[in-house]
């Protein structure tokens, strides 16, 4: 009777705020419940610019995805995809290469159910219910197996998700295990929350407190700590930098909200 799979979906409890629905609210979506909005409002009160960070995060992700497509990569594994709001990976990818395959992964059953509905009928995109903390649950998932050929390069997207892994979740080992499953030529895209140099803290801590109330607390990591995730990858220029500094379409300006500095982005290439 103890032979449960190492990862099983958590129960559906919509009385607890969910990371992905809170994020959706930050992005102006309505794929959320009052409990999520309540949590989001508290966070917004502390750092009103959070939606901007979210926006910048998605923009950075789009640029990184375009870069991967430019490298000829036609397989995408997006872990922690959340509620599909708009401008998602498969939309960006399919604009450039309609035949590329995208596998989304999330451990939130509501997010998974929603993604299923949205992706229904899409031959080149799918959703797998699995948990990043158990990489095998991701790699061995039938949808992953069906859609991705791990012997060929894959773009692994860990966008705004690693900061929900605690050290006790063996975050580095998790990324290492995923890395070992990737073929040479694969890229790893990471965006991650970071302590804002100088100012911050009190406000950021208040945001952290909000996430403490979700089932997934927020862990901020420094640039060297985020760089460590790229062990085994060649870190591409310009390295691990603030979101809007990663290969921007228009140069970042001094007018940009300093809150954007609370997000880091980086892309690595597996040799």
């Amino acid at each position, binding site marked *: *009777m103890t032979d449960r799979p190492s990862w099983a*979906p958590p*129960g*559906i409890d*919509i009385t607890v705020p969910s990371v992905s*629905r809170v994020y959706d609210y*930050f*992005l*102006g*979506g*309505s*794929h*959320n*419940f009052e409990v999520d909005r309540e949590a989001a409002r508290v966070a917004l009160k502390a750092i009103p610019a959070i*939606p901007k960070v*979210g*926006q910048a995060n*998605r*923009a950075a992700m*789009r640029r990184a995805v375009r870069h991967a497509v430019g490298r000829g990569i036609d397989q995408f594994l997006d872990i922690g995809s959340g*509620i*599909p*709001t*708009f*401008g*998602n990976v*498969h*939309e960006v990818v399919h604009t450039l290469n309609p035949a590329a395959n995208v596998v989304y992964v999330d451990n939130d*059953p*509501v*997010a*998974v*159910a*929603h*993604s*299923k*509905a*949205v*992706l229904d009928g899409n031959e080149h995109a799918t959703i797998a219910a699995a948990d990043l903390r158990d990489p095998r649950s991701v790699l061995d998932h039938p949808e992953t197996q069906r859609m991705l050929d791990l012997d060929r390069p894959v773009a692994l997207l860990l966008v705004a998700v690693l900061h929900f892994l605690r050290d006790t979740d063996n975050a580095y080992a998790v990324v290492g295990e995923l890395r070992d499953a990737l073929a040479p030529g694969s890229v790893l895209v990471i965006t991650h929350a970071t302590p804002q140099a100088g100012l911050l803290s009190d406000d950021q801590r208040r945001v952290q407190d909000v996430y403490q109330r979700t089932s997934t607390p927020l862990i901020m990591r420094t640039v060297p700590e985020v760089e460590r995730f790229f062990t085994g990858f060649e870190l591409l220029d310009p390295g691990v930098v603030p979101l809007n500094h990663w290969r921007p*379409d*228009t140069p970042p300006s001094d007018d940009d909200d300093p809150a954007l500095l609370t997000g880091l982005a980086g892309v690595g290439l597996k040799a």
Partner: protein
Amino acid sequence: MTAQPAAPRCRAAGGTARAVGRTGGGPALSTSRDNLARFAAIWSRAIYPVTATSMTSAEFEQHLLPLARLLRDTLHAERFDPRAAIRVGEGLVAAHCTDPESLPSILGVIDAYLVLYCGPGLDLPAEECRVRCSRLQHAVAVGFSHALRERTLYEQESISRAALNAKTEAESALAASEARFRAVFETAAVGIGIADLEGNVLEVNESLTRMLGSESYIRHRRAGDWTHPDNGPEGDSLNRELARGERDHYHIEKAYPRADGSVLWADVQVSLLRDAAGRPQYQLGLLEDITERRRLLERLRHQATHDALTALPNRALFFERLDRALSTTDEHGADRADRRIGVCYLDLDGFKAVNDSLGHAVGDRLLVAVAERLRRCVTSPDQLVARIGGDEFVAVYADPPSLAAVTELAGRILKALSTPVLLDDRQLPVHGSIGVVHGPVGTRGAADVLRSADITMYRAKELGGNRYEVADPDADARAITRHGLTNQLPSALRHGEFFVEYQPLIGLEDGVVLGAEALVRWCHPVHGVLGPDQFIPLAESTGQIVPLGRWVLEQAAQQARDWQDRRFTGPAPRINVNLSPVQLTHPDLVAEVAAVLDETGLPPSALCLEVTESALIGANEDALKPLRRIADLGVAIALDDFGTGYSNLSSLRWLPVSVLKLDRSFTRGMRQHPADPVEMKIVEGIVSLAHTLNLTVTVEGVETRTQAEHLRALGCDTAQGWYYGKAGPADQLHALTLADAV
């Protein structure tokens, strides 16, 4: 993943814009286009910061261009229909301007810049243009609000549906998993039961029902009501700890009464099931039926701990019980150093004779009968009778109230054996000797206690048997030496602890050394040199005399051969070697004697085997046969200790004997002058008789010259004794012989 309704609307807006753009071509087009782009740029700059779009600001500006064009064309339309601008509001929502805060920026730019960059034309008065612009803003606001409401409702519905789907999926997964577990539960070979903390049974599976009898039988009792006399109290206390949440698991073997009254033995694992907050909620029991396994184990254990012949407990069980009785703590660990122990060690008197004369089958039946009687002597559970050897039985009495209680048990045993056993109409008398040990526990081990009882039993035997003796330390000490020697004999022989000394035999006529008697000694590592009296009886009782006797014979024969080789003249020196009655009955005796003669090359006439008179008394012709055959080889046979037994003179006629050895008791009276006349007459008679029968006469124990002279005068042939020389190493005799030869 654009929300479903948003994308098509966005495309619709773009499509409309292009259509309008085509109809709006004209000479002012390039200027108009620049102005439109300028308007879109201003518009984008105002709105972009308040959108959530993931587009870049350049992309966003491009996205706004068709919407700006739609505004311009609507503004300039011949038939002004402001409702066309509703699509502008919708298009902005589709581009993720979903924050109501963006509406003032959207409308503010239209209000301030639309007319400036896109109006008024030749056919449109300025006043009319301003009115139209206001109405366009109303329409944009309507479109924005409408689209935002639609979008919000749609997204709310889709997330609710997703939550519902997820819930349904989780529930069906749970139902499927529950169905699987239910199947496991129902079809498991182990019995499974779930009870609340009070032990009220809530669920039982098929196997458990089958094991115990019926479901209603199970449900009518609580888990704690399943009691059986074979169960200790530990199960209940474990269960109380579990119910209190102090332990999460326990594992015991337990007996359960079945519905039909029989017993189920089960290997039971009980686990505590807690609720989400960690509070004890249920107990889960897994029962494996081990009744058969246990029965088999019990049978095996019974076989391992009982004697197959008599079904009495065997040596193993006896020691187990003795160890337990000797323990200074009881089974619960409490100190019981005040306990005492009683042991009765019984050996049947003369059982060997029964076995030898009536055969083993009868012997076995006798043992069975004795065992049956002994069984009845046990009067309480703290007494146990075991068979620990051929005809050896032991009763162990745990913590007897007194020595009297133990001797009473010994008395009961003797009384039980007092009537003969009737086997096939034959009355077989049985008697036994019992060694009784009684004392406090904690001072000695089981082996020690048993040895003491064994020794004491021998004492009872030596005192005539059919009695019990109580162990006492002094008697033990003496007997322990004896006992120890017996045990050490075999290894002593292996380790070469024996040696042979030689006592000269002198011809009385001329005082010449004729030979020697070989006498075995034991150089004991602890007790020093021991004489034959101290160990030969022990060797005879254990049969060790056979290998020992053979070894002495070999040594002596080899020695005699050495002497013969050194003395070039005269007859070969004779060697006398003692033969035990036990050796006489050994089937290989003749062959061994022949082999020794063969191997050493000693002439048979140089060997004389001494046999005690008592060994030959009552011997029939069969028993004498080996002796006769040895005599036939040419070996002399001496009748040792003549005169100490019944001295059946008539038997001398037909015994294969050539030498009489007169016991020293006949010649004590001749040590001084004048000699005892009666003694002289008797010896004279014996010598005369012997010579008549062609026997030579040797006298033992000659200690004085007077004695020697008397004996010579009486016609004795040879003599030995201190007067001539004590027993000593072979070299001593060699020297004597040489001296004699000179």
